[in-house]
C-alpha cells in the first residue's frame, strides 16, 4: 500500500475537519438565515410591477427590472413587515441587491426570482443593480422606505 507520511496524515485530517465544519455550517444554516432565492416557475402575472398589501404586516412586491430603473422605484413599507419580492426583468439581466438585508438576486427575462425579507428597523434601504445592463447601469437604484405607519 501507499506509505503516507505522518505530517501528511495530520494535514489530511485537519483539512477534512475544516471542510466538514464548513459543510455542516452550510447545511445547518440553510433556510435559517440568508437563504437562496426561491425557485418560482414563470408566469406572466409577475411582469406587471405592483405592490400589494396582504395584511398589516405582510406585503408582496412584483418588482420589474428594466433598462435602467426598477419598477416600482419607491416602495413604502411599515416597520416590522415581511415583504415577498418577486423579481423579473423586462429586458437584459439586472441585479437586485438590498445590501443591508442580504437580499441578492438576479433579474432575468422569462424567469421569476423570489426572496422574503423582514424590515424590522426604519430607514431607506437602497436596491442597487449590480449586473452590467448597458449604458445607464450606474444610475439604476431604487428605494424601500420603511417607516412607522402614521396614526
Amino acid at each position, binding site marked *: 500500500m501507499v506509505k503516507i507520511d505522518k505530517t501528511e496524515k495530520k494535514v489530511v485530517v485537519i483539512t477534512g475537519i475544516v471542510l466538514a465544519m464548513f459543510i455542516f455550517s452550510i447545511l445547518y444554516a*440553510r433556510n435559517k438565515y440568508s437563504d*437562496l432565492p426561491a425557485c418560482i*416557475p414563470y408566469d406572466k402575472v409577475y411582469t406587471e410591477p405592483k405592490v400589494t398589501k396582504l395584511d398589516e404586516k405582510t406585503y408582496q412586491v412584483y418588482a420589474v427590472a428594466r433598462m435602467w430603473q426598477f419598477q416600482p422605484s419607491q416602495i413604502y413599507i411599515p416597520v416590522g413587515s415581511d415583504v415577498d419580492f418577486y423579481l423579473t426583468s423586462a429586458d437584459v439581466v439586472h*441585479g437586485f441587491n438590498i445590501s443591508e438585508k442580504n437580499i441578492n438576486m438576479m433579474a*432575468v*427575462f422569462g*424567469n421569476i426570482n423570489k426572496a422574503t425579507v423582514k424590515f424590522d428597523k426604519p430607514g431607506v434601504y437602497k436596491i442597487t443593480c449590480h449586473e*452590467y445592463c*448597458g*449604458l445607464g447601469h450606474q444610475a439604476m437604484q431604487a428605494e424601500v422606505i420603511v417607516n412607522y405607519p402614521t396614526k
Partner: protein
Amino acid sequence: MQISRSFKRLIYWELGIPITLLTIGIYHGLMQTVYRAGVLSQASFAHLDYYQGLTLHGVINAIVLTTFFAVAFGHATIAFYFKKEPNKNLGWLSFWLMTVGTALAAWAMLSGKASVLYTFYPPLKAHPFFYLGAALLIVGSWVPLFDWAKMYVNWKKENAQVKTPLAVLGTLVNFTIWFVCTLAVAYEVLVLLLPWAMGWKATVNVTLARTLFWFFGHALVYFWLLPAYIMFYTILPKISGGKLFSDLAGRVALFLFLLFSIPVGVHHQFSDPSISKGIKLFQGLLTYGVAIPSFITAFTIAASLEYAGRKRGAKGLLGFFGKLPYLDSNVYLFAYLICGLFLFIFGGLTGLVNASAQLNNVVHNTAWLPGHFHMTVAGPVFLAIIGMSTYLYSTISGKKVFLPRINVIIPYLWTIGILIFSTGLSWGGLLGEPRRTNLGMTYLNPKSQLFTPEWVPTTLLGLVGGIIMFVAGLLFFIVFFGTILRKKDHEGVLELPVSEALHDEPRIALFDKFKPWLVTMGVILVLAYTPALMNALKNTGPGAPRFTPDNPVPAEIISSTRK
C-alpha cells in the same frame, strides 16, 4: 533541448501577441480604478468608454492571454519532457485559428460593437464577429490536445512502466478539463447566441445560456490555474534548491481537479432564478470538494520549500522562510511563483467564502468578487504567466533578460498593489459597492443624488493599488520587450527546471492512467448538470429578444421602425 526555428517562432508569437494586447488590458485596469474612485465622472475617456474598456480588460487578460499562454507553455512542456516537437502543421493551425479569432473579437470590441463584458450574458447582444472570434479562439486551443494526446500514447507504448512526468500529466489533465468545459460554451456561442445575434432566431433562453456559460466558466479558472500549479510542483522546488515533498500528492491533486473542476459551475448562479435550491446546494458542496486539491498543493509545496530552506541551513520551526532565494535575479522565477502562492492564500480563502450559498447573498456581484479574483487570476496565474513568458522567451532565443534586477522585484511590487487593491474592493463589497459599474458618474460623484460616501475610502484603496499594479505592469513590458530587442547572447535552447522527488515513490497505476478518472468525471458531470439543465429548460418562460447596451428598445423594433 535544441528546437527548430519553426517551433521557436510558434512560441514567440504565441507569447508575443497576447502580451502586446495585454498593454490595452492593463491600461484599462488602471482606468477602471480611476473611474470608480470618482476621479473621472464621465462615460468615456480617450475614445474608450468604461464598459467597452471593461470588456477589453476581461477578454484580453482573462481569455486571450491565459489561453495563448496555456497553449505555448503546454507545447514547451510536452516537447521538453518527450524530447520531441509537436506536429508542425497542427501547431500553426492552432495558432492561426486562435489569432484570427482574437482579431475578430478585438475588432468588435475596439469598434464599440461588443461592450458586453467577458461573460457576454444574453439578451445583451454583441456583434456576430465577437461570438465567432471567441469560438475560433477556443477551437484553436483544442487542436494541441489531440496532438499531445497522440504523442503521449506513443510515449506510453515505449514506457509502459515509467511514471508519466508530472508536468505532462498536468498539461494533459488541464487541456482535458478545458476541452470538456468549452464544449458547453461553444454550444452556447455557436447554437444559442450566434444565430440569435444574426437575426435568424428571434429569442434566446437566457437561463440556459447562463447555465452553459458557467459549465465552462468555473472550469475556466482551473484552466488558468493549472499551468501555475505545474510550475509550483515541477519547477519551484528545484529553483529553491530543494526537492518536491511528494510527487504522488501532485498526481492526486491533478486527478481531483479533473473530477471537480467542472461540476461546480452553478455556484456562480446561486442568485439566479429557475435553478432549484437542491442543485445549487449540491454543486456548492462539490465546490468544497474542489478546494481539496488546493489544500493538498499548499501543504506539499510548503513542505518542499521547508526542505529547501533547511538544506540552506535554516533552523527552528519557521526559519526556512528566511532562507529562500526571494531576490536572486538568477532564479527570478522563484520570485514570481512565491508571490503568486502568497496571494493565493487570500484568493483561496475568499473563494471558500464565495462557495457558501449563504455568504453568497452578502457578496454576489459586489466589489468583493473582483477583490477575490484579483488574488487568484491576477495573483498566481498572472505572475506565473509573465514570469514564465520572460523565461521561455529568454532561454529559447538565447537572449539575456533585460534589467534582471528590475525583473525580480516586479512580482513584489505587483503583490503590494494587489493587496491594497483587493483590500479596498473586498471592504467595499461588504458595504454593498457593486462591481461592473462606472461608479464615478453617480455613486462616487458628490454632485449626484446617488452619491454614497461609504465607498470613498474603499475606491481610493482600489485606485492606489491599481496605480502600483500599473507601474509593475509597465516594468514588466519594459523587461519583456527590452529582452526581445536585445542581441542574441548564446545559442537558445528549450530548457525547463525539473524538480526531483524527495521520497522514492513507486509508480501507482491508478494515478498514472486516465480512463477511470474520465469515467468518474463523466458520471459526476451528469449527476451535477442534468438537473440544472432540466431546470433551465423547464422552469423558464419565454426567451428574450436582442438588446444592445445603448437602448432599452429591443433591436428588432429599432430596425423595423427604420424601414
